[in-house]
C-alpha cells in the first residue's frame, strides 16, 4: 500500500484525496483542512469540493481541467503543509442536544448496551458524558457523523436493516454516533431520540451543524422531548468555542 495521502480518481469527473485507510483524529483534521484549502483556491474547472471522514473530494470538469493538471495542482498543495497537524476549522460551536435514551422512542438501547458490555444505566452515562465532534456531514443533508466514542462502543452494524428510523434518531456503531436528518432505513442501532431538525431547506441557514462542531447529548424524559418538538432546534443550546 502506498503511503498516505493518496490521490485517486473517483469516476470521470472526480478526484479523491485520502489521508488514511481508517478513521483517525489527525486524518479527519487533515481532510477538513485540505478541503477548506481546495475551496479557497477556486481553481478554474473545479466545480465542487467536499470532505468525508478521512478524504477530500473534488468534482471538476475534465473537459476544462485535465486529470493530469489537477493531479499536479493537488500534489503541489499537499506538499505545502503537514496537513495532519492542521487546526480544526474556525468558528466551531458546542451544542447540547436534549435526548431521550431508550424507552419505546429508541428501542435498541438495551441490545446496543449489551453489545458494548454495559448495563443500560452505564450505557446512558457513557453516551451522555461523551463530548463528540462532527467529523463529517454526509449521506443525507445536514447529517453528522460524530466521534469518537470510548472503545467499548466499537460494535458492528446490524446485519439486518431497521426499515424505518425517524428523523432526530441517535444511532450508534463503530465508536461513532449518527444523528439522522431524515427518516431512513439503517443498520446502526437506535439508542436515543431527539427533536433536532438538522436540515431546514427554507431557513436562511438550512444546515444546523458544521464539521468541527462539538456535541453532547443530555438525557431528558419523553414528556420533556414532546414539549421540545415545536422548537426547530429541539431544545438544543449552542455556544461558540474559542
Amino acid at each position, binding site marked *: 500500500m502506498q503511503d498516505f495521502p493518496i490521490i485517486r480518481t473517483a469516476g470521470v469527473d472526480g478526484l479523491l484525496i*485520502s489521508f488514511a485507510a481508517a478513521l483517525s483524529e489527525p486524518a479527519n483534521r487533515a481532510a477538513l483542512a485540505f*478541503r477548506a484549502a481546495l475551496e479557497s483556491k477556486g481553481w478554474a474547472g473545479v466545480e465542487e469540493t*467536499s470532505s468525508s471522514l478521512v478524504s477530500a473530494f473534488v468534482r471538476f470538469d475534465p473537459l476544462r481541467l485535465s486529470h493530469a493538471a489537477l493531479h499536479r495542482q493537488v500534489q503541489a498543495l499537499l506538499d505545502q503543509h503537514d496537513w495532519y497537524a492542521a487546526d480544526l476549522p474556525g468558528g466551531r460551536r458546542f451544542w447540547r442536544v436534549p435526548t431521550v435514551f431508550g424507552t419505546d422512542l429508541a428501542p435498541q438501547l438495551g441490545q446496543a448496551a449489551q453489545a458494548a458490555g454495559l448495563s443500560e444505566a452505564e450505557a446512558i452515562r457513557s453516551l451522555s458524558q461523551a463530548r463528540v465532534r462532527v467529523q463529517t456531514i454526509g449521506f443525507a443533508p445536514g447529517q453528522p457523523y460524530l466521534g469518537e466514542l470510548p472503545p467499548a462502543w466499537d460494535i458492528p452494524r446490524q446485519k439486518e436493516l431497521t426499515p424505518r428510523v425517524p428523523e432526530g434518531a441517535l444511532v450508534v456503531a463503530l465508536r461513532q454516533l449518527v444523528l439522522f436528518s*431524515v427518516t431512513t432505513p439503517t443498520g446502526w442501532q437506535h439508542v436515543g431520540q431527539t427533536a433536532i431538525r438538522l436540515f431546514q431547506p427554507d431557513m436562511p441557514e438550512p444546515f444546523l451543524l458544521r464539521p468541527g462542531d462539538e456535541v453532547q447529548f443530555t438525557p431528558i424524559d419523553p414528556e420533556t422531548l414532546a414539549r421540545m418538538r415545536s422548537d426547530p432546534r429541539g431544545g438544543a443550546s449552542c455556544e461558540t468555542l474559542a
Partner: protein
Amino acid sequence: MSAHLTILRAGPGLTVQDMGRPGYLDMGLSRGGAVDRLALAEGAALLGQADSLAAVEMAGMGGEFQADQDLRIALTGARMRAQIDGTTAVWNASHLLPAGARLSIGPAVAGSYGYLSVGGGVQGDLVLGACSAHLTAGIGAVLKAGDRLAISPDAGGATGMTFDPEDRFSGGEIRIVASCQTDLFAADVLERLQTTTFRRDARANRMGVRLESDGPGFHVSGGRSVLSESIVPGDIQVTGDGTPFVLLAECQTTGGYPRIGTVLPCDLPKVAQAPAGADLQFRFVSLDEAVSAERAAAQARAALPRALRPLIRDPRSLSDLLSYQLISGAIAGEEDVL
C-alpha cells in the same frame, strides 16, 4: 398574469426537475436533478431556450395536463403515447398546446423517464438555488392531480420541430472507468463483471438502479470492510449480497459499500432509461477514452439546436391537405408522425 399548467391526472412518479443543485455536497445534499439530463437539454433545444429551465419528469407513466394560455411544449426522453385533444402528438418534438386543450400522456413504451418541457420553463419554488424536487432530502414533492404549475413567460419560437434522439432507451453496453475501490476486487471478479449480461431490476428509483444477474455475486476478496466514503452518481456499489447497484442523481453523498467501477456520465442516461428487464453489459475503458467520450457527448449536446427539422405531417391526418403546397418527397405518408 403568468400562465399555468394544471395537472388533471398524475402518474405516480411526476416531479419538477432541472439540472439539480450543485454546491451542497459538503453538507450531505447530492445534486439531484433530472435523471436523464440529456432529455432536458433536448427539450430545451426543441423550444430554443436554456437547458437550466425546469420541466416535468415522468417516471414510467405520464398524466393529463391543461393550460390556461397557449403554451409551447416539448416531449423528450422515454417515449410515451401522447395526445392533444385526442390527436397524436409525436414524441421527441415540440408542439403548441392551445389554452384549454387536454394533453394526455400514457405509459412509457420505450425507456423509463419521459419529460414534458414548457416554453418559458416551469416556475417551481426555488430552494437552495434550484427548483428540482429531491425526494430523499425532503425538498419538493411528487406532483398530484389538482396541482397548478406556474409557467414563466415564454420568449416564443417555433413549434412542430423534431430531431432524432440518441438511442438510450433499451439498455445495451455501458462504459465504465475504474473507481477508487476497483482494485479491492479480484481480477476474475472484474472480468466476470464485463462478461455478465445484467438485467435492470424492476426495483429502481431516482436514487439508483439494481442489477440482476445469474451466477454468483460480485464480492470483494476477503470481505474487507470499507470506510464510508464520498460517492457519486454513476458509481456501481456492490451490496453485502454481491448485487451491483448503479447510483443515479438522487443518491446519498457518502456510502460504505465498495464500488467496483463508475459509469461514464454520458452513458448514465442509458442506465436510467433502461426499462425493467432490459439487458445491460459493462465494459471498462481508459480514463482518456472516457474523457474523449464526454467531449463528444458535450459537442453533440451543443449541436442539438442544429439537429432540429420540421415535423413531416402525415397527409392522412391533415384535414386541410389541399391548402398545403405539396412538393415531391417532402411528405412521407408512411411515417408514424402526428
